[in-house]
């Protein structure tokens, strides 16, 4: 009787596992299809516009050569510089912010956190025009858009302290207290005790800060104001999909997409472990 029951469970398990495998395969296909299509279209040379089939009739590197001959190199370099600078500076700022708010109890802590919560409820889109004007007064627009974009993305990044604060909250406070008893200053506690334990969240923050600028379109377009030298990849490539260019540049857009996505994806996959730890350690704690 007992044995029979067991058998039934096992078959049930096998059936449900098979169903899950089928589902997972379907999901994987659905998730990958657009990317596979982009890659395939980037190698199509017989026409440069949208067509009703996926597999190129004629394969070649022409779209990548076009890419090389266009301003894309410049845009790519711009984005890379912004991403790199943001990765370093945003991480420093966010860690300062979240560490402080997680570890210190000072008079203004509560009001400060509430204030930033309220600030975060204003749609950021609203402030684009004024940020543009401020940058323009500082001479950081158009051809100088790169430092301007770095400045803006770094300056307000303190607001995004939530995830890393959630992570710091999980490190036991007794560690700090022990070190303080041993005569370490607050700064020494940070460098010697907390930072070594924070590798996942540091890498998580670097990774998200690095990935952000690759997709920044709306504000970057404002700041570049029609100066190709100040474009990032999103602004530059988006212009290829406008009515007057899409017929000539569609496949080049696909090639550009591949060039943008591949390094970011590889980096992401290499550091995936930390990303997951960061997300699960911090994100849900709000």
């Amino acid at each position, binding site marked *: 009787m007992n044995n029979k029951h067991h058998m039934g469970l096992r078959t049930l398990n096998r059936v449900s596992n098979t169903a899950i495998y089928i589902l997972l395969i379907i999901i994987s296909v659905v998730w990958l299809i657009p990317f596979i299509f982009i890659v395939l279209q980037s190698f199509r040379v017989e*026409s440069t*516009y*949208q*067509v*009703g089939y996926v597999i190129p009739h004629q394969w070649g590197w022409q779209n990548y050569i076009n890419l090389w001959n266009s301003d894309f190199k410049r845009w790519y370099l711009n984005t890379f510089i912004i991403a790199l600078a943001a990765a370093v500076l945003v991480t420093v700022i966010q860690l300062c912010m979240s560490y402080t708010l997680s570890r210190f109890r000072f008079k203004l802590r509560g009001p400060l956190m509430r204030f930033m919560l309220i600030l975060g409820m204003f749609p950021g889109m609203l402030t684009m*025009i004024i940020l*543009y*004007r401020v940058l*323009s007064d500082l001479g950081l*627009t*158009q051809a100088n858009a790169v430092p301007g974009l770095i400045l803006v993305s770094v300056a307000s990044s303190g607001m995004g302290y939530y995830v890393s604060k959630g992570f710091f909250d999980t490190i036991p406070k007794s560690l700090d207290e022990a070190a303080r008893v041993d005569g370490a200053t607050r700064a020494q506690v940070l460098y010697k005790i907390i930072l070594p334990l924070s590798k996942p969240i540091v890498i998580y923050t670097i990774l998200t800060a690095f990935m952000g600028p690759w997709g920044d379109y709306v504000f970057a377009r*404002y700041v570049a*104001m*029609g*100066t*190709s030298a100040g474009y990032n990849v999103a602004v530059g490539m988006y*212009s290829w999909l*406008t*009515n*007057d*260019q*899409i*017929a*000539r540049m569609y496949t080049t857009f696909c090639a550009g997409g591949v060039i943008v996505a591949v390094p970011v994806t590889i980096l992401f996959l290499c550091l995936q472990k930390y990303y997951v730890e960061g997300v699960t350690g911090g994100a849900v704690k709000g």
Partner: protein
Amino acid sequence: MKKILSIVLALAMVLSMGVFASAASELAGEYDVTVWAPEAAVSLTEQQIADFNASNELGITINATVEPVSEADAASNMDTDVSAGADLFFFAQDQLSRMIKDGAVTKLGQGAAAFVTENNSAGSVLAAQSGEDYYAYPLTADNGYFMYYDKSVIPEEDVDSLEAIIADCEAAGKNFSYELENAWYNAGVFFGTGCHSDWSTEDNTNFTLDDDFNSENGLIAAKGIYKLVSSPIYVNSSNADFASGSAVVVTGTWNYATILEQLGDNFGVADLPSFEVDGQSYHLGSYNGCKLLGVKPQEDAVKGAALNQLAQYLTGAECQIARTVEFGWGPSNNEAAADESVTSNPALTALAEQSAFSVPQPNIPGPWWDIAKVITTDIKASDGSDAALQAALQKYEDSVGAASGITLVK
């Protein structure tokens, strides 16, 4: 007051003629200039500016940075910040009122205005005008649309009948691309049935519109629109869609090269067809617009004058012909229009045929485009009955009547 003004003006004219020689030498010098041109035209424009530097007798040297900025972006960028905008920029004429409103284009002096009126086609002169004054230089007169078609789907004898074309497309399972949910295209249908839409403005802020879209003729046009948009093969697009299922695309010269490549031997081009309502035939009309070259207002009169010299060179016959040869843009300049390179271009020929049914596009304020495009949306959502179509037109009239900055007279 008027008298004093005219005396001053006359004096100014005498003075300007008298000191022409010295004025010319006054312009000599180097100028740093930014130009916004559509991506395709960047290298040609750089070349033309270099030619200008070499050939002008005024001693002007332009150090130009030519940036690829589409005509639509030029306007939205100027909206954001005129100070950071280019000194010289290509834009479509429907943006003129917006550009003037932004303070992004300079008023032309008398000499420049004369250059525009004397050398360009009547329609393009109208396009550069707002009130009594001129604000830009016509670059092309080809901003109109006509029909490209796939000869393997649409037989030659059907190209004149909208009904026959729709039937051919339906039979072949091919689409008909016509961006009727855009006022620039749907207004043409109304012109085809004898409707008019006349605009005037004194101050470029308050416009007066005299139109009869909500009339018997308008109802006929609405029926024509319904014929197409109620068909399953209708696609609201003006892109080169031949590779993605369309057999007919109503679009302009800017897609000529792409479509030629897409269709190859089956390439067909013609003026728009006619449609039939109650046994009577109506030829689809269109807007015929221009692209313009704008000069940003300058604080330094000398630089302003030099820029105007450059703009006149760039919109002159020689440069316009070069653009026709390179990208098939139809010239606004009368001398260029007669050139062999223009008359032998099939797309420009179709455009010329369509011009018998086209209306020169006047200076129209932005909100109207948003209001008028909804006519098609409403017609598409309706059941096609006279009452429903009439209601769509009535709604259009009400919306225009209530719009700020537009006064509707009938």
